[in-house]
C-alpha cells in the first residue's frame, strides 16, 4: 500500500508527493499490530488482576489435600453441594457423579463418589481437574482425599467408583448456601504412553 499512487499531497514540493504518506502509514500499521497484541496481552493481565483484586481463584487449593481437619459440625446450617462431571474435548468416557447434590453441615467430613468408565477402546491414563463455583469461596472447600489428586489408569472398558472426602469450612460466609464442584475428565496422552 505504501507504493500506492498518491494523487496530490498538498505539499510544497511536487517531488515529495509520492512517498509522503509512508511514515504515517507505517506508524498507524504498527499501532494496529500493537492493538492486536494487546488483545492477547489481556489474557495474562486478566489472571494477574483477578489475583490482585482477589476476585477468587476457582483452583484455590482444590488439587491438594489438606493434611488434617478437625470436625466441628455446625448443626444449624445446611449448605447444598452440587456435583457436575464434564468430559471435554475428544475423550470418550462415561463419567458421572454418584449423587448430584448433597445437603451438608459445615465443619463435618463427607464422602461421595464419581463413576468413570473407559470407552476409548484403549488402556488410558486420565485425570480429573476440579473447578469450584462460586470461585470466591473455593478456599472454604477442603478435601482430605480426592481421585483428582493423581492420574487414574484405566484398562479397556474398565469402570470404577472413585472417592472424594471433603469438608466445608465453618468460616464459610453466611450468605452462601450453595457450592458447585465440577470435574472435567481428561486423557493424559504422555502418562498413557509411559504406562505402556
Amino acid at each position, binding site marked *: 500500500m505504501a507504493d500506492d499512487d498518491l494523487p496530490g499531497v498538498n505539499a510544497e514540493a511536487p517531488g515529495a508527493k509520492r512517498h509522503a504518506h509512508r511514515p504515517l502509514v507505517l506508524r498507524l500499521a504498527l499501532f494496529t499490530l500493537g492493538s*492486536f497484541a*494487546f*488483545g492477547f496481552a489481556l*489474557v495474562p493481565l*486478566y489472571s494477574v488482576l483477578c489475583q490482585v*483484586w482477589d*476476585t477468587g481463584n476457582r483452583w484455590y487449593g482444590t488439587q491438594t489435600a489438606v493434611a488434617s481437619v478437625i470436625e466441628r459440625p455446625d448443626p444449624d446450617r445446611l449448605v447444598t453441594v452440587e456435583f457436575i462431571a464434564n468430559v471435554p474435548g475428544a475423550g470418550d468416557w462415561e463419567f458421572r457423579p454418584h449423587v448430584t447434590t448433597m445437603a451438608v453441615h459445615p465443619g463435618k467430613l463427607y464422602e461421595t463418589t464419581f463413576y468413570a468408565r473407559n470407552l476409548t477402546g484403549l488402556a488410558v491414563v486420565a485425570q480429573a481437574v476440579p*473447578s469450584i463455583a462460586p470461585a470466591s469461596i473455593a478456599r472454604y472447600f477442603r478435601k482430605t482425599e480426592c481421585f483428582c489428586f493423581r492420574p487414574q489408569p484405566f484398562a479397556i472398558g474398565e469402570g470404577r467408583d472413585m472417592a472424594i472426602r471433603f469438608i466445608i469450612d465453618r468460616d464459610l460466609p453466611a450468605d452462601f448456601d450453595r457450592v458447585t464442584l465440577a470435574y472435567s475428565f481428561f486423557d493424559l496422552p504422555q502418562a498413557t504412553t509411559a504406562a505402556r
Partner: protein
Amino acid sequence: MAHADSLAHDDHHDHKPHGIGRWLFATNHKDIGTMYLVFALAMFLLGGFMAMLIRLELFKPGLQFFDPGFYNSLVTSHALVMIFGGVMPAFVGLANWMVPLQIGAPDMALPRMNNYSFWILPFAFTLLLSSFFTAGGGPAGGWTLYPPLSLQAGTSFPLTIFAIHLMGASSIMGAINVIVTILNMRAPGMTLLRLPLFCWTWLITAYLLIAVMPVLAGAVTMLLTDHYFGTSFFNPAGGGDPVMFQHIFWFFGHPEVYILILPAFGIVSEIIPTFSRKPLFGYDAMVYATASIAFLSFIVWAHHMFTVGMPLAGQMFFMMSTMLIAVPTGVKVFNWTTTMWRGSLSFEPPMLFALAFLFLFSIGGFSGLMLAIAPADYQYQDTYFVVAHFHYVLVPGAVFAIMAGVYYWLPKWTGRMYSMALAKWHFWLSTISVNVLFFPQHFLGLAGMPRRIPDYSVQFTDWNMVSSIGGFAFGVSQLLFVAAIIHGVWYGKPATAKVWDAGVHGLEWTLPSPAPYHSFEEAPEIH
C-alpha cells in the same frame, strides 16, 4: 483502469472511467464513497427485513413462524448486518465523500487501499450470510459471540469468525486512510482547530477503530483456536475463563458503540449551524468533548457485564466512569441547543432529522444512565430495556444522523435537489413509527421481558403488538427513503452550489453541484 496519478498533474478534464471497471478498480474517493453508501443502504434494508421477521414472530406470544434456532440466527445476523454492514460502512462512505471535500484535498491519501477496504465487504457479508444455508443454520449465539454458546454453533461458526476478520480488516484500512488523509492532506491554512467537526469526529473515530478492531480480531481468533486447536482461553476445564471473553469483547465493544455514534455527532454538528444560520456554539468544547468521550470509552467496558460477579470496587469504578460520560455528552447537547438559540431556524429534511436525533438520542442517553447504575442494572440486564436503550441510540441516533447527512449532502453529490415532500413524509413517518416501535420496549423490559427469546409470557402481548406495528410502519417508511434517493439522483431539479443558504459554511459548498469528479486538484487557501 482509472489511474490516479494521471489526474494529479495535467489532466484537468472531468473524465470518468467507463463500464464496470470504473467501480471494480475504483480509486476515486467519490466513486468509492458512493459504493460504500449503496452497500450500506442494501445492508440496512436486508437487516431491516430481518428485523421485520423478528417483530413478526414477536407479534403474538407462542411460536408462530420460526423455530427458536432460526429466530436466534435472525437476531444475531440482524445485529452483525446492521452494525458492520449498515452503520459503519455508511459512515465510511460519508467520510470518503466528504473528508476530501471538507479539507480541500483532491482525494483520499491511499486510494488503492480504499478500493480494497470497500471490496472486502461484499465478500465478508457473503461469507456471513451464506452460513444460513449450511448445516445448523446461521450464527445464533448473539452478535457478542459469548462462549461457550458461540462455540456450539455448526458450520456457521468459522464462517462468522472469518467474516468478522474481514470486516475488521476493512474498517482498519478505512480508518488508516481517514487518519492519513486528515493529518497529511489538509489545505494550507486549515489548522487542526479549523477542521470541520465531521472530520474531527471521524479522526477520533478512526483512532478508536485501529485501537479496538484488532482486539476484536484477537478475541474471535481465540474462539477459533479454542474450537479447533485445543486451546483453553475460555474453557474452564482447561484453565480458561468464559468471563474473560466478555472482558476482551467489551474492551472492543464499548469503544465500538462510540465508533457508531461519534461521526453522527459530527454530521449533526455540521447541519444544526447551517439551518440555524449561526456558527456552531463552542467549537473547541465540541472537539475536547469528543476526545473525552473517546478516552472514557476505554475505561467503562465492564458496565456491560455487571452481573458476572465482580468485586464491589470494580462495580463502583465502572458505574462512576460510565456516568462521567454524561458530562462531555451533555456539553455536546448543550452546544447544539445553544447553537439554535436565537438562530434563524428553518426546517428542511436534514435539520428535521438532526433535531429528532438531538431529542431521541438524548432519550437513549438517559436510559443509558439508568443502565449505568450497577444495582439497577441487575434488574435491567438482558431485558428489553437494554434493547430499547441501544436501539434509541442507534436508530434515531446513528441512523437518523446518517439520513440527515444524506439529505444534507445528496444535492452536492448529484447536483439535483430531491423532493422535499417525499423526504418530509419519510421523516415524519420514521420519527413517529420509530417511537411506536421502541418506546414500548422500555415498558416490556422494566416489566421483565427477557431479550433474545422468540416466545414470551402473555402479559407482554399488548406492548409487543404495539411495538411490532411500529416496526412494520418504520420498515415501510424506509421505502420512502429509497424513493427519495432514487428521485433525487435521477429526476430532481438542479441544485445550486451552496444548496441550502448563501451563508452556508464549509469548503464543500465552494464547489459546484454536482461536485466535479476531480476536485481541489489545486488546494484552496484557508484564511
